[in-house]
């Protein structure tokens, strides 16, 4: 697909964001980060460098964590994008969000959305990760507040809670 990235040139973007259809004209030069934050006003996704260095802008595209600052929005045509706003079900928080809140895994909260979606992708493919696997999966996300340890504990606790809930259901 040829995309006109000159300022003012608009391109049609059709995709799903947090389960809702999106169909609108966006600037061809804009990154997914910019379209999420500026066009869709989904400001839960953050940015720390806009160069792919910090992981703050991570979102899920078809379930895989990607850096939205390095992805053109128009590359996401026909795909399913999940941001932090899409993690909870109505008022019910995702177990990761509950665990992060309970265990002090969010201090300033700025890196938190990117870490939450990256951790969700991990748990979706590996429901019981070891601490080493959690650290490996999150190694691309910088956090300057926590020292990471409470984040690792929160991801492990969320996995535990989800497994317990799964056992209750079956």
């Amino acid at each position: 697909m040829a995309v006109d990235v000159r300022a003012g040139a608009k391109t049609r973007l059709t995709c799903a964001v947090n389960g809702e259809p999106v169909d609108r004209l966006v600037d061809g030069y804009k990154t997914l980060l910019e379209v999420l934050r500026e066009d869709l006003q989904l400001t839960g996704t953050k940015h720390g460098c806009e160069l792919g260095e910090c992981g703050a802008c991570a979102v899920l595209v078809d379930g895989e964590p990607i850096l939205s600052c390095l992805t053109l929005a128009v590359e996401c045509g026909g795909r399913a994008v999940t941001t932090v706003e899409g993690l909870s079900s109505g008022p019910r928080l995702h177990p990761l969000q509950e665990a992060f809140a309970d265990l002090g895994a969010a201090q300033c909260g700025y890196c938190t959305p990117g870490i939450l979606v990256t951790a969700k992708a991990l748990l979706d493919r590996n429901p019981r990760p070891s601490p080493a696997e959690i650290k490996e999966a999150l190694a691309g996300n910088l956090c300057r507040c926590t020292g990471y340890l409470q984040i690792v504990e929160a991801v492990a606790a969320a996995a535990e809670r989800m497994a317990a809930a799964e056992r209750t259901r079956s």
Partner: protein
Amino acid sequence: MSRVIGRPRRRVDARAKVTGQTRFADDVILPRMLHCKLLRSTVPHARIVRIDTARAAAHPGVHLVLTGEAFPVPYGVLPVSHDEHALCPDKVRFVGDPVAAVIARDEATADQAVHLIDVEYEPLRTFAAPEDSLAHAEPRIHDYGDGGNVHRAVALQFGDVDAAIDGADHVFDDVFFFEGNTHLPIEQHAAVAATDPDGKLVVWSSTQTPHYLHRSLAKALQMPAAHIRVIATPNGGGFGGKSDPFNHEIVVAGAALLLDRPVKICLTREEVFYCHRGRHPVLMRFRTGVTRDGRITGVDLQTLLDGGAYGSYGVASTFYTGALQTVTYDVPTYRFRGCRVFTNKPPCGPKRGHGTPQARFGQEVQLDKIAERLQVDPADLRLNILAPANTLTANFLRIGTMGLGECVRRVVASAGWGDKFRRLPRGHGVGLACSSYLSGAGLPINWNDLPHSGVQLKLDRSGGVTAFCGATEIGQGSDDVLVAVVAEVLGIEPFDVRAVTGDTDLTPVDLGSYSSRVTLMMGNAAIEAATRARDLLAQAVSRKLEIPVARVTFADRRVFDAEAPDRGVTFADAVCMAEAQFGTIGTTGSYTPPRSEAKFKGGGVGPSPTYSYTAAIVEVEVDPVTGWIVVPAVWIAHDVGRALNPALVRGQVEGSVYMALGEALMEEQAFRRLPPRLSNALVHKFPSMLEYKSPTFLEMPDVHTDLVESMDPAGPFGAKEVGQGPLLPIMPALANAVYDAVGVRIDEVPITPEKILKALQLAAAGKPGRVGPAAFPDHVPWPEALRVTPPWEGGDGRASNEPPRRSRRKADAGVEATTGVRR
């Protein structure tokens, strides 16, 4: 007794943070909003000969182009160094200094237009290092200071330190260097300015200090502070880097007033490196006299700070390098000389630990050398010389509770120190160090007699309580402390209390989130406000229940008779009764620190209502072939007074350990010269997160955190600080561990594999196995030291040779008086 305090709880703002609903400054999006970009200097030191903005102004979509003449009035956070302009009017002082601004319909347009501005510079000599600044008085980077390119040189002496050192059994003379590093908050600084419907100015900003920004906007824009509203948005990490009033905040404010439209700026990551205000590079020399049984007779400390291009907090930073040496150990005589010079680099300022980590590194590594020479265990050496609780130090700092001994004993036990120190196989080692930090600066920046923190409560008939305070949530959990303290006193749940913070229109002044002051000062103010509200409710309920006021008890959202708990009313009913009796229920509380006993000039930096204490043991694995260094574990004990919310306290300790390991092992705010064929300009070596290395999940060791609760009477419910102190012992403990592992001394930070390898090679060649600075310069223009007699020799806290000051209010730590915001 406590229902809220002391329990690990979900913080009050946790839900907002995990759902992405916390509204940071760049999340503020307003109708008709324009976007601002700054043009920054490409040369390190030059006069601005000409700026041509015509092409930028003509660019489609551009609304306004501003240069230095739009902002003629200088500002700065300290009254003694109002040396910044929002846009440089006549000269630039570092690569990154802003010279012009473009306001356009969107960020991309502003970015295009800013590159259409032509600037002609007349280069001036570049000062790249403190030695350059000491050696060459001209050209001056600033036309103020202590002569040439010396910003400030200070000297203080407490007792006859020369005789004490000369008469000691051993004299240790060591030089250390601590490289500069930066805060690297994940949130880039952002600000939005707008006029409200009445035409008044509103500024949202990621600032730790809305009150100082409020003052600075009033001064720089020459408008009444009463017509300016500053809203500090929750900071996406601060660590001291958002404590100065910044040029970009003033530029968007000025632009919003000129255009009557909202204007936003969000700095790029590269620009954040230029804002800096981070850790000063410090060269230091410790001369310490020690008796054969390991007691200190005197310390003679010299520090040389590379201040960068502006004053910032630098005068305070200078004093801080010498302030806290006396609060950990018994130092009977002391001399401190500190010198800050200007260089053509981004300005240094306060980073977590503000000025104290550098000298703490030197002191604690030297103590390790002393223990080695005296053949004493480093833990025992320290336990033997602890500064006593509830005493005055040689430099007139009032120590409160002092849990350092307990901290040392706990880490020694938990780490298995006795089985490890000097007993691990080569390549494995442990090191120990201690530290202390302020629980809030005892003196204000703008000298006055006003409270440092104020809290206002509004009690609603529904039983809801709103707590207003100027304190700023930077991730440390200050909103949670505010809510928890109010809920505890009133016997309600934290969720019943709404915190409104960091808004100069709505909240009483709190000086800001710096110097680890918020928990203690805001907490005490909140206790006072809540106690006053409780008293009103108690009177009303005592009348209703016909019992003495003293029996009225508050718990579980009820107000009841302590002797007959079934007899009582709901908290909401109690509010209504009080309102019926007294009218609308609103109370205030405020906190002012106790007066300092240090009356000498310079004594304003260091006093605190009380001090936290920390001991840490760091374990390392060093590959003797490559010098590669890994930290598998850290044991740390911190005297926090009382942990108000242990989950958050633990997070502050671990976050401090993390940030300290970054400083100890890898982080460097370093500079280089561009090749001569380009410009030879002095530029930041790597203003990006990829190349400015910081620890990831994979580098973080196990941290064994132990909280010591000394219940300090100065703190709210006994609490002291925790946000900064636990960072301080990690760097020296790591250096000491490297020595234990491979027998070489790295007397500078960061401790990299290259330096370890070099030291090992030197040792193998029969030379001293040490990497570090060779000497401290002997040509620093020290002033005559102010001589202050220590308290145990009858001193009254004044200097015997200080020239009379114009008035008590006119000077404090070189921070001269101001009458407040200029109207």
